[in-house]
């Protein structure tokens, strides 16, 4: 409750031109934007660059947004779409892997680091849209309808992408485990 009030206050002050309030908004949402970029691109430096650009874009579009909640929705949408566009533009192997990314500051301890890394790698290998649908569903915990709104695609496409992505991941995971 207090946190929400603080974010709303930061949004209002940022809208009035307060730079330190905008920096507060950046700090509040940086992990969300960076995580989407990192899990999508699997390159820490590219993820940071893309995340910075998303926030610079936010700075220019702040007056178009109505509330602090709208800021979060907008950031998630722009980060997701930029990641998809980036991967489509530059289909190349990542030069820096997740291993170079900083350790998570918060979050649950991974029970099986090997399985988690395999899943991150397999998720990153999914087709562009399917990968982003998986990230928004399991990283951002969005409902399919929210994912459809974020990516501006039909709900049925989200559901079918998710279904196919899970089937692909399950199959790839089984193959990986059989090989071990």
């Amino acid at each position, binding site marked *: 409750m207090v946190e929400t009030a603080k974010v709303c206050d930061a949004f209002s002050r940022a809208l009035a031109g307060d730079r330190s309030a905008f920096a507060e908004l950046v700090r509040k949402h*940086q992990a969300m934007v960076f995580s989407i970029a990192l899990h999508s691109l699997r390159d820490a430096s590219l993820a940071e660059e893309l995340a910075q650009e998303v926030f610079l874009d936010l700075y220019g579009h702040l007056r178009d947004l109505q509330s602090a909640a709208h800021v979060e929705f907008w950031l998630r949408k722009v980060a997701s779409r930029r990641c998809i566009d980036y991967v489509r533009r530059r289909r190349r192997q990542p030069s820096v892997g997740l291993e170079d990314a900083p350790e998570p500051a918060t979050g649950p301890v991974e029970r099986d680091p090997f399985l988690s890394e395999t899943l991150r790698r397999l998720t990153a290998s999914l087709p562009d849209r399917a990968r982003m649908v998986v990230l928004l569903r399991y*990283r951002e915990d969005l409902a399919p309808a929210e994912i459809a709104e974020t990516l501006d695609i039909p709900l049925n496409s989200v559901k079918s992408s998710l279904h196919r992505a899970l089937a692909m991941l399950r199959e790839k995971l089984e193959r990986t485990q059989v090989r071990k």
Partner: protein
Amino acid sequence: MNDLEDQLRRALLRQEPPEGFADRVMERIPAGRRGWQRNWMAVAAAACIAVVGGASWEQHQRRVEGEKAKEELIYALTVASESLQTTKQIVTR
């Protein structure tokens, strides 16, 4: 819940960006007024200039037309006066 979905939630952890991320973003934002505010001010200033300039131009045009009408009236009166003088001379003779 599906086991794979559960594993995905654990694998796709939220990660903080490297230290100083927000500062680096702020360094890339030009100091002073925000871009859109600057643009808004420029648009407002241009609109003011256009309105004031337009009003002045209209006023100037009215003055020019007024002067022209005045000159035409004086000319017409002069012509009329000369005609009257000529007629008066003829009648007097």
